[in-house]
């Protein structure tokens, strides 16, 4: 009897959850479907069954050189993330393992830099980039993204490092490990999962950053965000191709995101929700 009720409850909840999930996912799904249609099909009214052509993907590559912005996105996202990690790991390390009275203040201050609205510094940054010849360069944008995401990277690493119990470090000291051995044999292996999650989340954030990447590039260093934004001006109907480009722009990061959903919560709430 009780078991019956539970099963019925589960079926109801399942149906409701799937309906909600499919509605939310629908725009993405429909983009994927449209990308497999021909252009006339794409504007011929609602249909979930495409003719299954891959022509659009080929066209996007041959006509608009999709590969170039894609590579820019990869270089920018990965490059800025690694750069941020190199700068942030020692800091987060020091704050987690030799905290002082001011550690908390420094962390809060770092967080506060993240609150600065991008538009507020658009003018000086734009002028500086122009004067230093950094506009539309990969290097300029990489530095930019590194700085933008540095506070989040420090914070995420800090929350992970802080969870490494102090007693383990003391045990290592009792066992005769010097500082270097402590780092190599004990701390690094324990810190790797946290560093990996930080890396993943930060790549996602950098990949999707859509203010500086659009404003500070034109063609050479333009990543996918700018590439897609350039489609906004209506130059005739080319939805199937647009869908193909969109699908390619979001697919890699979508898959990466699925793997990192657990860490996402922690990272984006600065450890406030686990």
């Amino acid at each position, binding site marked *: 009897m009780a078991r019956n009720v539970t099963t019925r409850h589960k079926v109801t909840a399942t149906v409701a959850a799937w309906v909600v999930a499919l509605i939310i996912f629908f725009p993405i799904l429909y983009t994927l479907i449209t990308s497999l249609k021909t252009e006339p099909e794409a504007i011929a009214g609602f249909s979930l069954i495409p003719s299954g052509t891959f022509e659009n993907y080929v066209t996007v590559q041959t006509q608009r050189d999709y590969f170039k912005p894609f590579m820019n996105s990869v270089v920018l996202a990965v490059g800025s993330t690694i750069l941020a990690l190199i700068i942030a790991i*020692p800091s987060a390390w020091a704050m987690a393992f030799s905290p002082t009275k001011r550690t908390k203040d420094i962390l809060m201050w770092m967080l506060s830099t993240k609150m600065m609205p991008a538009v507020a510094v658009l003018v000086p940054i734009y002028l500086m980039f122009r004067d230093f010849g950094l506009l539309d360069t990969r290097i300029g944008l990489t530095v930019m993204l590194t700085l933008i995401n540095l506070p989040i990277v420090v914070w995420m690493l800090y929350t992970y490092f802080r969870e490494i119990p102090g007693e383990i470090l003391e045990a290592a000291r009792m066992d005769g490990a010097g500082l270097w051995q402590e780092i190599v044999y004990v701390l690094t292996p324990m810190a790797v999962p946290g560093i990996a999650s930080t890396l993943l989340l930060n790549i996602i954030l950098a990949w999707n950053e859509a203010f500086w990447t659009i404003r500070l590039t034109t063609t050479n260093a333009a990543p996918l965000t700018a590439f897609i934004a350039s489609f906004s001006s209506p130059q005739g109907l080319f939805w199937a191709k647009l869908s193909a480009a969109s699908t390619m722009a979001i697919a890699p990061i979508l898959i990466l995101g699925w793997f990192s959903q657990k860490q996402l919560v922690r990272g984006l709430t600065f450890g406030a929700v686990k």
Partner: protein
Amino acid sequence: MATQNTKTLARLMMAPSVLLLLVWMIVPLAMTLWFSFQNYNLLNPGNVSFAGFFNYQYFYTDPAFFQSIWNTLVIVGGVLLITVVGGIAIALLLDQPIFGQGVVRILVISPFFVMPPVAALIWKNMIMHPGYGVLADIAKFFGLRPVDWFAQYPLFSIVIIVAWQWLPFATLILLTALQSLDGEQKEAAEMDGANFFNRFIYLVLPHLARAITVVILIQTIFLLGVYAEILVTTNGGPGYASTNLAFLIYRTALLGYDVGGASAGGIIAVVLANIVAFFLMRAVGKNLDR
């Protein structure tokens, strides 16, 4: 013993990130502040002079300014309302035992990973287009006239798009918080005779309070700066109907070439963001002490 050495080492390790962020924060901000008191137009860069509060006055008297402030608030408020209420509802649903929970979760969080320009274009062309969008198809199916969303309800359309992007974030965080609720507490409440509604009001909602605060504050930080969605869909129009403060500053600076005016707007944006930041920092800071 080694404590003094350790401290010095720790300072050295922290120095790069602290210095970088310090420079990154202070230099551009100081420049913005400086520019905001100058007559400085990129079309006439040789002719720079002190402007006093003229730029602020100019910004303040521009009707677009108040409209953009209002639009900013509508976007922030509207998106928060949709994502928090919707997020709680969906989180409650996903917290039930369901078949294929893993897949459902993945479907629900996916929009968060879609880059803003793509999200905006998908909605603009595939969903909300008055001629060929899915919503138009649905309207036609029922014999109704399709709505030209971006012409008739530009701000609302943008709210919908941005809410779609942030709903997964709210849902995911609220679901995480929900799952940390002690199962025994729920059972105790059930034994005490609390029905689902009472359990929600007296047990679940207070438990979610902190997560909701965090969602609101973090989203606000990002929502104050909504940019790409507007650029790609309405470009701020019609008129200034869908221009928020961020977009107005961008227009002033890079379309109007008015460095001084844009900088004054930037300073106003900083002040606005700081008000929000103040509350966020307190919420996060409290958590640090725990």
